[in-house]
């Protein structure tokens, strides 16, 4: 079984690569070991003896390439997040990220549709679908779009801002919303997150309470997170500092800021970027129940 899974994994990665090459994206490799990631409240980097960190995402370097004038970029690389291990998580995992200048998150949603249709057609030519918990999900049928606000009201009869205030956001999202999204037999785009959950996303023009951020769900599995990029260095610094303040209060390490990134951010054109979990995409392509089934070795195997 493992042998088949590894072949499928290689095919999915090749399909991703072909897809972006055919569309004129530049494939890049940026350093995995960096002095500072973008500090986030709930992402813990692995810090090495030299005090540099393994990347939690290649976003910092890829956005600096956008500042240098590159317009369409993609990268498939390893990322590390400390202490994340479960049926859908590995501390070391493979991420696909792509970035485009002169567009917003809408374009990324279209990219997602085309990419997933391509992967399904190439890697599962017979059924051309994804599988999750024995449900077939068809990327060729019209995708569902739901705003976060709508989803919390429709599936949980609660207000998302109220949940955030009471510290119930994660609980409702994972125990009510995600199981509801698992019922859809098409991919679902959950979009327009409360600005509190924006991280590096810009807020919606004309509505500062919402961020232009979306997540792609297939069979209830969170597959990708994309947004229109914030390119205001002051606002970005304020958010990093706020993340560090929350971390400090929670007894977590305060993280260094990626200063060269902040210094060039003002020169970044309007752009959008997205991160997609490659291991999870392989899970959905094969119908695997756990991430363990789609990697050559888990940490426990080593």
């Amino acid at each position, binding site marked *: 079984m493992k042998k088949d899974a590894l072949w499928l994994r290689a095919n999915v990665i090749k399909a991703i690569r072909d897809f972006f090459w055919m569309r004129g994206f530049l494939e890049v490799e940026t350093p995995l070991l960096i002095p500072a990631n973008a500090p986030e409240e709930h992402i813990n980097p692995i810090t090495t003896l030299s005090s540099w960190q393994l990347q939690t995402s290649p976003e910092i370097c890829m956005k600096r390439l956008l500042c240098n004038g590159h317009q369409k970029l993609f990268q498939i690389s390893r990322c590390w997040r400390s*202490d994340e291990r479960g049926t859908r998580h590995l501390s070391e995992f493979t991420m696909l990220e792509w970035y485009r200048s002169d567009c917003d998150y809408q374009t990324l949603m279209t990219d997602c549709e085309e990419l997933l249709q391509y992967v399904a057609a190439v890697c599962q030519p017979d059924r051309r679908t994804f599988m999750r918990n024995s449900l077939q999900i068809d990327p060729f049928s019209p995708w569902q779009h739901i705003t976060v606000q709508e989803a919390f009201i429709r599936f949980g009869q609660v207000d998302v801002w109220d949940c955030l205030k009471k510290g119930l956001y994660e609980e409702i999202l994972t125990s009510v919303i995600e199981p509801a999204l698992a019922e859809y037999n098409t991919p679902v785009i959950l979009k327009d997150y409360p600005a509190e*959950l924006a991280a590096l996303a810009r807020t919606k023009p004309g509505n500062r309470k919402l961020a232009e951020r979306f997540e792609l769900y297939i069979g209830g599995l969170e597959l990708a997170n994309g947004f229109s990029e914030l390119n205001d260095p002051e606002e970005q610094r304020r958010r990093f500092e706020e993340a560090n303040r929350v971390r400090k209060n929670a007894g977590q390490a305060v993280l260094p800021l990626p200063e060269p990134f902040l210094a060039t951010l003002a020169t970044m054109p309007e752009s959008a970027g997205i991160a997609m979990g490659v291991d999870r995409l392989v899970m959905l392509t094969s119908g695997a129940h756990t991430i363990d089934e789609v990697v050559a070795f888990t940490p426990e195997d080593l």
Partner: protein
Amino acid sequence: MLFKNILREERMYTVADLKKGLKIILDGDPYLVIAFDFVKPGKGQALYRTKMRNMINGSLLDRTYRSGESFEPASLEERTMEYLYKEGNHYTFMDQQTYEQVVMEEEVLGDSKNYLLENLKVEVMLFGEKAIGISLPNFVNLRVSETEQWAKGDTSGNDSKPATVETGYVLRVPPFIEEGELIVIDTRTGEYSTRVKG
């Protein structure tokens, strides 16, 4: 209590230690983690969902934890002991090496009581000084104390009949088993397995 002191010296578990098979103390009772999942919505806080079984009464418990929480490890010990006797609904076992005795109530033993014959060696699970369960050998030999005679030429078509063994346990046995015979019972299913020849 000696046991409490030993516990205090042990390292506490954190949420990162949670996994299937972990034994922890909650509200004074030992719990076995029987299912565990790590969930973390994008940009959100990690949640650690567990399903646990109370190791004393078997009840199930669902709990969700967040990072930063810690747990007291439940130190459990299995010791080979011999079953001595029953008094009322209390069963007494003894460690043959230390002559230490423990007493367990009938409801804690559950179905295991059906196979307890004096001098039977069992594994007693100890939570501190408290015995919380036993594990039996997979097969035990017990003598049939009461069963009806198999009438030759019986055409009722029954391929089994009830029999009472020396512990008082009643089970179905094949028609040819007679009173006084030694039979082998599978303690995992409670069913007749074979008869002891000779």
